[in-house]
């Protein structure tokens, strides 16, 4: 739908002139060209945010969600190693994200030319797949937080806080010079959404995100292997305050 809006915007956009600082803040440096418009609307603003939320939800529910729901108890009592369970969860997520990207591709390929924006097929596909490392990094971070922290809600809070904080740092760093040295700390820095259709994907950045994902993923597996499995609905605050679990069923 937003793609379809471009032609109607185009006229106004010619004299669309935000102050330079604001343009940088919103990643809108190149908002008035077709590539810039699509890049800004999707690849820099809506989609990464949606996908980050998706990744965090998946990462904190994969193992920690099953633990809180109690179903992990019976699963881990079977002759399967915790490593295998964790790696298969991760594998399932990787495959599902790739499949989603492939499914989403035709939607881009149809909608972008349909409104008379001329962006090449390869560029569109590359742009679609360029989300993946960012999503994986947040998934791995969420998985690790959920395995290392006593409960899922705390883990979700920590990762969401991290995502919001790093997004703000990233957005502000484009406009404010003093924040520039902090840019390397934010995952969003390694993903060049707003220029993706013009400049192509940031391969070095993608590689950095992949490495970070792998490291966090391995840390998550390790933390999960060491963890004392909680019982269903265990009151988190009690665990934090070193109290006896409130809901231990019978022993």
């Amino acid at each position, binding site marked *: 739908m937003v793609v379809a809006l471009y032609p109607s915007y185009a006229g106004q956009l010619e004299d669309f002139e935000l102050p330079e600082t604001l343009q940088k803040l919103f990643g809108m440096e190149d908002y008035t060209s077709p590539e810039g418009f699509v890049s800004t609307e999707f690849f820099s603003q809506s989609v990464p945010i949606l996908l980050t939320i998706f990744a965090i939800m998946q990462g904190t529910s994969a193992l920690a969600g099953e633990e809180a729901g109690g179903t992990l108890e019976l699963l881990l009592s079977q002759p399967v190693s915790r490593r295998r369970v964790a790696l298969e969860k991760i594998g399932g997520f990787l495959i599902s994200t790739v499949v989603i990207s492939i499914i989403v591709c035709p939607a881009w390929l149809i909608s972008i030319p349909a409104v008379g924006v001329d962006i090449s097929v390869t560029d569109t596909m590359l742009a679609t797949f360029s989300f993946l490392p960012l999503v994986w990094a947040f998934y791995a971070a969420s998985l690790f937080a959920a395995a290392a922290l006593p409960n899922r809600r705390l883990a979700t809070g920590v990762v969401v806080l991290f995502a919001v904080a790093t997004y703000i740092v990233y957005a502000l760093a484009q406009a404010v010079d003093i924040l520039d040295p902090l840019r390397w700390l934010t995952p969003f820095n390694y993903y060049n959404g707003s220029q993706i259709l013009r400049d192509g994907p940031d391969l070095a950045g993608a590689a950095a995100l992949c490495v970070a994902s792998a490291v966090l993923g391995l840390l998550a597996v390790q933390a999960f292997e060491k963890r004392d499995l909680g019982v269903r609905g265990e009151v988190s605050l009690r665990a934090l305050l070193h109290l006896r679990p409130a809901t231990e*069923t019978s022993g």
Partner: protein
Amino acid sequence: MTDSAAIEFRRLVKDYGGVRALDGIDLRVEQGEIFGFLGPNGAGKTTAIRCLLDLIRPTSGQALVLGLDSRADSVAARARIGYLPGDLSLYDTLTGEETIAYFASLRPKPLDHTYLDMLITRLTFEPQRPVGALSKGNRQKLGLILAMMNQPEVLVLDEPTAGLDPLAQAVVEELLGDVAGEGRTVFFSSHILSEVDQICHRVGIIRAGKIVAVEELAMLKGRALHVIEVTFARPVPPGAFDLPGVQELRRDGSVIHLEVRSNLDAVLKAIARYEVVDLRTEQPSLEQTFLAFYQESPAARQEASPAVP
């Protein structure tokens, strides 16, 4: 490895935060036994069982299954256990059949469908319905089927009859009897003694993280105490039944209640010295026997500390 214990706890300690949930448990369950693990809620039954399955890790000490360490040989140990959690959670969207197929796929041994069908029939379970639509009792049946279907050498059941109707409870007792008859081991926890006295060979009692007693059930039944209620024609002098192993519980005029642990013969002879109008005796449940042997009665506590108001 054939002579190793089915289950063994060696000085097992588990701390939760600052609280010691298990305080150095030692226990050995032999192969082919039905062992009842008894104790009030919160005593540490579930904690010990979850250590055995490597769901939680001992602070110190060891839990072994058929000689396999729960930590070092965790997967191999679990391949020989069938486990029913005390707080059973299943995937609500799957049907019973799908749940069975899923968990069967995680086991190295192929499923014996004849045995599975026997379990389903005897427990009158309906495998086509989604788990989310099942009653508590039917979920428990499915949990039992999942634990038993692979015919594991060691069955570990945390409160197996919870939520089951008496009919299903009886079926479970029969099934567990059959398991032991095949030389396999059943280890199950309960907080209700009367639930176990029909089928257990031995019981272990855990209280506040410590094993306070391990007994042959036959022995315990032999020790069963009697409560005698005698109505005399006239009030009898105090101290008339001051015999070892006998306690006067209550006295309402000429009616006296006696708790007799031993010395039954001496008690009857003492009673016979007075004119008896009525005599009733009851053998209390195993529950009461246990309490008498392993729990200080309020009276005993008062006796121990007379200075305290």
